[in-house]
């Protein structure tokens, strides 16, 4: 059966499935763009004729630590919110 979306388009299930998959791919790509930019600043000295193994290791570690950081912050915010119960109020002020 058809479902009408916000834009008034009657979307069939195939199209909805497609949009879900493409959105997920796009979130992945967007984060790759972002992390490449951030890690480039951290890891890249002068661009040489080849990406040497030390720089490559730096990029891999940079990605891992970036994700760790993001998860750490998320967890800590959750904990703060749970223990104080006032975090959301502070945010909305």
């Amino acid at each position, binding site marked *: 059966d058809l479902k009408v979306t916000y834009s008034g388009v009657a979307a069939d299930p195939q*199209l909805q499935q*497609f949009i879900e998959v493409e959105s997920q791919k796009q979130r992945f790509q*967007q984060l*790759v*763009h972002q992390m*490449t*930019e951030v890690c*480039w600043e951290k890891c890249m000295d002068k*661009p040489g004729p080849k990406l040497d193994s030390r720089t490559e290791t730096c990029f*891999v570690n940079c990605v891992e630590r970036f994700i760790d950081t993001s998860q750490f912050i998320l967890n800590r915010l959750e904990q703060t919110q749970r223990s104080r119960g006032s975090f959301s109020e502070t945010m909305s002020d």
Partner: protein
Amino acid sequence: MDSFGSDFSSGAGSGKMDTGSIMEQVKVQIAVANAQELLQRMTDKCFKKCIGKPGGTLDNSEQKCIAMCMDRYMDAWNTVSRAYNSRLQKERARI
């Protein structure tokens, strides 16, 4: 993107677009958007690395630096993509 909204709604409004061609068009537009994103970030980074003080022309050594920088940026992009992907696999396996 501007063109995304207008193309999509005009196509749907006419009622002539089938699912297949909508998907095809969306895929092309996503690919274009990604290429533009890469181009913009690459230009920014390689300009910073290779152009010290902007001179009267883009001289030979600057051009060489930019060419090398472009290749390394692609290497970096691919390395990051692989690292992120394997991290996702690991996290999926843990759950």
